């Protein structure tokens, strides 16, 4: 387990438990810490973590802030706001803790409720929190997930009221302060989208300072009948910023989910994107785009768990990998015995731009029902030489032609961003990344 300081974490855990005594959350934390102590950090022998050696990040001491106080100021937030923010609800997390004072809720209270998780666990949303917080631990029992659970404090509860189709997206800004210390941030969020409601949720990550930051995030999203959820994750942080992010989406009623992950910069990144189909007739779409350079490592682990009949899911991930960067795609689809008439599709396409770039792609289908349609496919290749030659014979320079082809490769994924301001923003980032001067 390398240099991870168990004594330090144990001390922090005990402090947290004693200052926040017995309630729903402290019991969950306790279970989490037990699991963490037993499991430890996922090692090389854990098949799910084979390519993403997260324990190598723990060869240094991280400062784990257990309080809401931080040095993050409004000016820091101003520097990270995403385009379209004036028409968005903005939630700020500093070192993993939700900071209401820095956040701006523009939606009305009958539409959207945003509360500190502890507060929600006491008031009228107690039952929802009790019923849904930490359901992800049933699916993910590794130590890194348990580490987040051990320290659930300062998280957020987001509730979209019945029939409320929010006309503005909710932006979550995660800011890690790594100016003084290596920082471990562990944001925890529970989102409940009630019947016939619609939510667009966007997450982005920024590290301030030159020390290392490690974000170990868990967000659980519960989608009720006829609700629509769009989820966007934008990873464009510094090379010293690493992350394990779990997005655990449960569709508890017949509903629609559209999840999108774009990874452009960072250190070691692991994204767990889970869709649990708990009701018949669910529909989910998952898109991912990773453009990697330097030594960035991005691992997209997806899970679609079909437990009920007539569900549809489609996954489409694309990557362009340059320099010494590495990409991983692992797509697991379960079709349980009752999940007849499941349609589940999966595709992962990669372009390697250098001899030292790597991608590992692994589809995994486990099917226990007999009347299903499932498919998967993956490709790893170089740029299309014929297309490159064609463009060059028209007078377009080689590098420019390459850039055009890569942008074209990425374009059908980027089109899946339905929040216009965000789509334009990501398009600009990609154009900037891929263009030549």
């Amino acid at each position: 387990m390398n240099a991870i300081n168990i004594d330090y974490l144990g001390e922090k855990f005990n402090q947290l438990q004693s200052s926040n005594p017995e309630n729903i959350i402290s019991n969950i934390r306790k279970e989490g810490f037990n699991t963490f102590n037993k499991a430890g950090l996922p090692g090389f022998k854990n098949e799910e973590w084979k390519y993403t050696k997260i324990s190598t990040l723990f060869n240094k001491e991280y400062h784990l802030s257990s309080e809401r106080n931080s040095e993050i100021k409004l000016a820091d937030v101003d520097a990270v706001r995403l385009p379209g923010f004036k028409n968005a609800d903005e939630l700020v997390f500093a070192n993993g803790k939700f900071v209401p004072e820095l956040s701006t809720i523009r939606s009305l209270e009958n539409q959207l409720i945003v509360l500190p998780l502890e507060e929600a666990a006491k008031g009228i949303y107690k039952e929802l929190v009790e019923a849904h917080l930490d359901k992800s631990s049933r699916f993910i029992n590794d130590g890194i997930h348990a580490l987040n659970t051990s320290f659930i404090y300062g998280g957020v509860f987001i509730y979209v009221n019945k029939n409320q189709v929010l006309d503005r997206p909710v932006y979550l800004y995660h800011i890690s302060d790594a100016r003084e210390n290596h920082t471990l941030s562990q944001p925890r969020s529970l989102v409940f989208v009630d019947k016939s409601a619609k939510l667009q949720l966007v997450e982005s990550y920024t590290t301030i300072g030159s020390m290392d930051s490690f974000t170990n995030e868990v967000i659980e999203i519960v989608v009720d009948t006829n609700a629509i959820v769009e989820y966007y994750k934008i990873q464009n942080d510094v090379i010293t910023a690493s992350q394990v992010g779990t997005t655990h989406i449960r569709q508890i009623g017949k509903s629609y989910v559209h999840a999108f992950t774009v990874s452009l910069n960072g250190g070691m990144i692991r994204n767990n994107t889970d869709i649990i189909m708990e009701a018949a007739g669910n529909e989910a779409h998952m898109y991912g785009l990773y453009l990697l350079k330097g030594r960035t490592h991005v691992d997209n682990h997806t899970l679609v768990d079909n437990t009920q009949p007539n569900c549809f899911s489609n996954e489409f991930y694309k990557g362009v990998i340059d320099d010494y960067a590495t990409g991983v795609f692992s797509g697991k689809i379960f079709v349980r015995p009752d999940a007849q008439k499941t349609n589940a599709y999966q595709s992962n396409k990669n372009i390697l731009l250098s001899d030292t770039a790597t991608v590992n792609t692994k589809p995994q289908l486990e099917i226990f029902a007999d009347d299903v349609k499932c498919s998967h496919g993956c490709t790893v290749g170089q740029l299309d030489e014929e297309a490159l030659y064609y463009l060059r014979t028209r007078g377009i320079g080689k590098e420019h032609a390459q850039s055009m082809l890569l942008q074209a490769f990425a374009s059908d994924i980027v089109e899946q961003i339905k929040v216009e301001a965000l789509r334009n923003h990501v398009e600009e980032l990609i154009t900037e990344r891929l263009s030549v001067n």
Partner: protein
Amino acid sequence: MLLSIKNIHASIEGKQILKGINLDIQPGEVHAIMGPNGGGKSTLASVLAGREEYEVTEGSVEFDGKDMLELSPEDRAREGLFLAFQYPVEIPGVSTTNFIKTAVNEKRKYHGQEPIDAVSFLKMMKQKIELVEIDKSLLSRSINEGFSGGEKKRNEIFQMAMLEPKLAILDETDSGLDIDALRIVANGVNKLRTPERGIIVITHYQRLLDYLQPDFVHVLVNGRIVKSGTKELALELEEKGYDFIKDEISLTAAL
């Protein structure tokens, strides 16, 4: 002299395809290159366009006073060479209009000119669309994606019109076209004939040449031009097939 090919030998993967081609083209001339499959017609087009898989082992090509073999494919295009592909490539995700605009501007940049402004570009597009009778809606789509065979060929001629080359090579532009599509494509090419522009037409068949009326016809067999003549040679080939030339060659060889 627009183009002067001298004793070109070229090979791919160690296999010799061109075995000493000589050809001179003056501005305004249309040259047809005919010949049986595997004779080297498309190889000649690829060598001229700069396809990197082909290795030129001997000979020289001078294009408008420049050593063409020294230039990259893009620089050849910027100097005024255009190749209409036998099999135009489909490129999903790149809009045809943006692609052509980029190509026009890269050429302008090479010649030290400012990028074309939006109004002039649209005007130019409109004019060339009418000239080559291409369906406007194709141009907002990705390059050749889902185009029919005829639409792809028409798109090649449209690109030629937009890029205004000094020398155009049409590599089997007639293949896979029905009579109507052939007529439209041939009319487009005829409208692009100018006293300055040279055109090389590579074809198997007489019917495209009926429309284009070439100044010269060359027969390429086994990596060499074995016979050159005027347009009447094409008619003779149509009538007698390539065998009569092959007979002539073996006769000459025997002598």
